[in-house]
């Protein structure tokens, strides 16, 4: 279970949010000129890193605002939240080195605490 720091409402349970997949996927500038291959890249291909991932979330049952988040897909540590439209913050520290403090992004990056996955077992 993730504890997600909504930039507007503060830390809230994962169940209040909906996931929006990879962040920073711009709509094609000239859609009429795209080849089938380019359309397929735009529609179906997303990054799937084992590590830090920039993704979108919406606080469905709270402020109902979308925002971006940097999260480690292995440790589930949340490293930064930042508004839509803002570039991805500079490469954060490796997950192990981040202990709940701010990432080193631009001024718009909101510092936050890490998640606390509860009772997670293998």
């Amino acid at each position, binding site marked *: 279970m993730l504890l997600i720091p909504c930039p507007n409402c503060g830390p809230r349970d994962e169940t209040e949010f909906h*996931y929006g997949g990879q962040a920073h996927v711009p709509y094609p500038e000239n859609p009429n000129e795209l080849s089938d291959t380019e359309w397929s890249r735009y529609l179906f291909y997303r990054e799937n890193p084992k590590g830090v991932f920039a993704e979108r979330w919406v606080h469905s049952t709270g402020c109902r605002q979308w925002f971006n988040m940097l999260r480690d897909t292995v440790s*589930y540590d949340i490293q930064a939240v930042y508004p839509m439209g803002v570039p991805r913050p500079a490469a954060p520290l490796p997950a192990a080195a981040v202990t709940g403090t701010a990432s080193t992004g631009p001024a718009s990056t909101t510092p936050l605490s890490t998640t606390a996955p509860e009772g997670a077992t*293998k």
Partner: protein
Amino acid sequence: MSTQHLPEHPDFLWRNPEPKSSYDAVIVGGGGHGLATAYFLAKNHGMTNIAVLEKGWLAGGNMARNTTIIRSNYLWDESAAIYEHALKLWEILPEELEYDFLFSQRGVMNLAHTLGDVRESIRRVGANKLNGVDAEWLDPQQVKELCPILNIRDNIRYPVMGATYQPRAGIAKHDHVAWAFARKCDEMGVDIIQNCEVTGFLKDGDRVVGVKTSRGTINTEKVGLCAAGHSSVLAEMAGFQLPIQSHPLQALVSELHEPVHPTVVMSNHVHVYVSQAHKGELVMGAGVDSYNGYGQRGSFHVIEQQMAAAVELFPIFARAHVLRTWGGIVDTTLDASPIVGLTPVENMFVNCGWGTGGFKGTPAAGLTFAHTIATGAPHALNKPFSLERFETGALIDEHGAAAVAH
């Protein structure tokens, strides 16, 4: 409910050889699909100078984590064909592999809880019959007769309005399935190499010529990727991308009980699926976590919802104790269908994207993937499941159609 005893362990299962410096083909991933692929490469194509590389221990990944349900009641023709072929193989494999893995054809019911469910379900029964897949529509009374502990009263939030039923569907003991394949592979000379992690690939231009591993470099003419959950990580190492997103999927088992649950019950709408293992545990699963993850653990709220659904459908489960929960990583595609076929890298082939339903497809995945690796071209059954479909638009959209959400 089966009262069969567990099969005895044979004296000898498989060797633990040192990796050789070269093989005719290397399969990456020693789970069910990798072992089945190696088996059919050896049996159908006479390729025995091959290795299966497993980064952990044999079949210790998703093969050891799934809920073992086997069925072929898919909506679309392409899916029905490959899953039904798998089911036919399941029916003959215990004899062929000379190892009883307790394939129990106790039937699978997919419940309908809304008028929309009912219509979709009856449509799927029709589609199944047209494809030669056994399927029936059951009314609530018939559902109750098949599984007496199911609550069919109409005073619950989502009453049971009927179910589709596939009598030939069922469950098998996944560990024994893996061991059965591994034993036969070994007999035919296949090297099963455990604790051998792939760290990169050797390429000559666009062609793969070798595999770099934690136990040295292995030259090979062909590489088959069978590493559910981590397929896109391997593809990245090989220099291409897959339209795959990896998600945690979790399941749980109860303590042991007397036989109470004679079939398999699945519900897409309230989303829980339940069967009772041969030993007596209630085995339950639900959906994937929404976010991408490789953490091999799942969210509490998913378990909470599936337990709420289970207890409403099966009131007697209210006092059952959870014994164990666990999570695996599944690789999902946008159309909820697998990718089995060629890749942009010459002589490298991929079998992935089975999402939450890879176990049931194991024999057909192995058979068709072995054909693809041996001949360099797809088998008729996996041709529609090529990577190209994301460019041509010929998607096989099983989202919501495949009798359970992905």
